């Protein structure tokens, strides 16, 4: 395990949740926990090295994020708005991670997207980190 990677992704997640959704996220470790999700949110890192960041976000966490970002009740939001705000959150997490880890190097991200099959995440050098946001646990998968 690379401590710098863990430190950078942790800082990126906490900063993005706080600045974008006004939610305090806390890193709780890498001990495996069951997270129930309907689909995964993924963004590929293209430069300077290949990799990806994937969010495993339970419905309760999605609800809180979408409501805070849109300042609207969850039931009034469209499914497009709900998915899009999670993808945008991931996009910003990825941008922050790249900045913390690679500094002023040139880097490039693909567009964030939804995936349905966890088997697509077939990487050797991977990190599975768990966070809590308002007592709901979610997972960040990082491979580089």
């Amino acid at each position, binding site marked *: 395990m690379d401590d710098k990677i863990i430190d950078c992704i942790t800082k990126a997640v906490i900063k993005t949740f706080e600045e974008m959704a006004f939610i305090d996220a806390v890193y709780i470790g890498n001990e495996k926990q069951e997270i129930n999700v309907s689909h995964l949110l993924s963004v590929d890192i293209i430069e300077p090295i290949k990799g990806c960041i994937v969010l495993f976000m339970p419905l309760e966490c999605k609800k809180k994020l979408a409501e805070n970002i849109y300042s609207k009740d969850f039931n009034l939001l469209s499914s*497009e708005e709900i998915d*899009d*705000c999670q*993808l945008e959150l991931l*996009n910003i997490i990825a*941008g922050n991670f790249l*900045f913390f880890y690679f*500094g*002023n190097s040139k*880097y490039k991200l693909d567009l964030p997207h939804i995936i349905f099959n966890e088997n697509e995440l077939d990487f050797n050098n991977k990190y599975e980190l768990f966070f809590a946001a308002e007592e709901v646990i979610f997972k960040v998968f990082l491979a580089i």
Partner: protein
Amino acid sequence: MEFKKIMIIDDSVTSRMIIKRCFLISGLSDSVFIEAEDGLHAASLLEKDKVDLIVTDINMPKMDGNNLIKKLKTKDEIKDIPIIVITSITNKTVEDELLSIGVKGIIKKPVSPEKIIKILGEING
């Protein structure tokens, strides 16, 4: 400089909503906002409609922000409209590249009213 009509270009509907909200909070509540979801859509809208400020993301499908900016800078009727980039991917290298192609200001996402006010102040210098 007055920004009566502002074009916001971002493939994320959430991001466009947040940017618009930040401009409104920043005191531009009388401005009209035109939204485009990628560079190609924006270029098409700009052929018909004149705006006072262009706010664009970089990482977008169809035509990204870099190519859009380069295209706009070749058009006499558009090249002098100030452009602000709002992106999740920024550092000194990216900022230097964007400034070299004529961008007036760069904001790192997530955008806030404070960041908008600062950039508008710099543009109006």
